[in-house]
């Protein structure tokens, strides 16, 4: 068993929990975003100012992100209490998701295509 992997995993867990509790403190003090999102920003700040060693987090965080969707299963199972809602409005829900998703894909795609060719021209004129 590789000792470094375990040490880095513990380091990552402590770093994440520290950021989470700092984030929750911010949430209690100011409200606004959920505590976990403030925690995400806190982690970013720590990484930016090199107060947390990014290299040591890498492997653990990649593992977490790869496997985290199992944690969403209980929330999704909650649909069991909303069968009548799905039976009544399922089609409308799918339509809303389809239209808004394709609208977002189209809007971002077209804007980036137009703007990035424009900004590339600007850059070359700067040089």
């Amino acid at each position: 068993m590789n000792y470094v992997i375990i040490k880095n995993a513990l380091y990552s867990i402590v770093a994440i929990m520290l950021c989470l509790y700092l984030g929750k403190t911010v949430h209690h003090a100011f409200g606004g975003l959920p505590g976990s999102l403030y925690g995400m920003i806190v982690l970013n700040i720590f990484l930016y100012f090199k107060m947390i060693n990014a290299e040591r987090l890498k492997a653990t965080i990649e593992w977490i992100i790869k496997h985290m969707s199992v944690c969403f299963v209980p929330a999704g199972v909650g649909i069991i209490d909303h069968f009548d809602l799905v039976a009544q409005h399922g089609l409308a829900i799918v339509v809303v998701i389809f239209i808004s998703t394709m609208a977002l894909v189209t809007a971002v795609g077209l804007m980036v295509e137009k703007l990035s060719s424009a900004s590339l021209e600007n850059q070359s004129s700067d040089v």
Partner: protein
Amino acid sequence: MLSALSYILLTIIIYQISAWCQRKTSAIWLNPMLLTISALIPIMLWQNISFQYYFAQTKELSNLLEPAVVALGYPLYQHLKTIKYHWRLFLSVLTLGVAVVVVISFTLSMALINIPEVAIALSYKSVTTPIGIALTDASGGNSAITAFAIILAGLFGALLGPSWLNYIGVRSAKAQGLAIGAASHALGTSTISKISYEHGAYGSLALIVSAMITAIIGPLLVDNFVLFYTTPL
């Protein structure tokens, strides 16, 4: 205690089997989370297990959502270095995109379904699941609907996004990656990273930056919409 552990184990085992099925077939629509939920629901109906009971037993699993959101700060940090030069473009396009999707989702859901809890859930369906669920709970929406809507948004973008973008003449890896990452989060991103490395890089950039933007401007829009629709004139 034993019972809680066995429900968590059951969930993880079914999830692992589903993930194995997807790896074997590499079919996008065989989403492990979707498969796990569709396997658990018949078991629960058959064994007469209520959702409240199952949710209480697997609370530890849901509690991991919070550290998972914090962990997403790491890819965000990695991408901050790459967007340094184009941050104005990325931020303005993605902010506009997020605003458009929240407004369309909310108003269209109110027009067609007229249930604020569902409209809130559908407004947060373009972001990665832990953030979408956290935001839905904070705004008082139905997070079970969010969980499903997020998978569907991911599937639509992953399956139809690339060919639709090619059709409307958006062909650069940068534009395609950002568009699908913003709309279809990790599901879309993992699918398009097979097209090119650049697609994947821009996809994960968009997914993480648009999730941040949604977390900041989403509640402002959604909470005011809810007030607007639920306050009697």
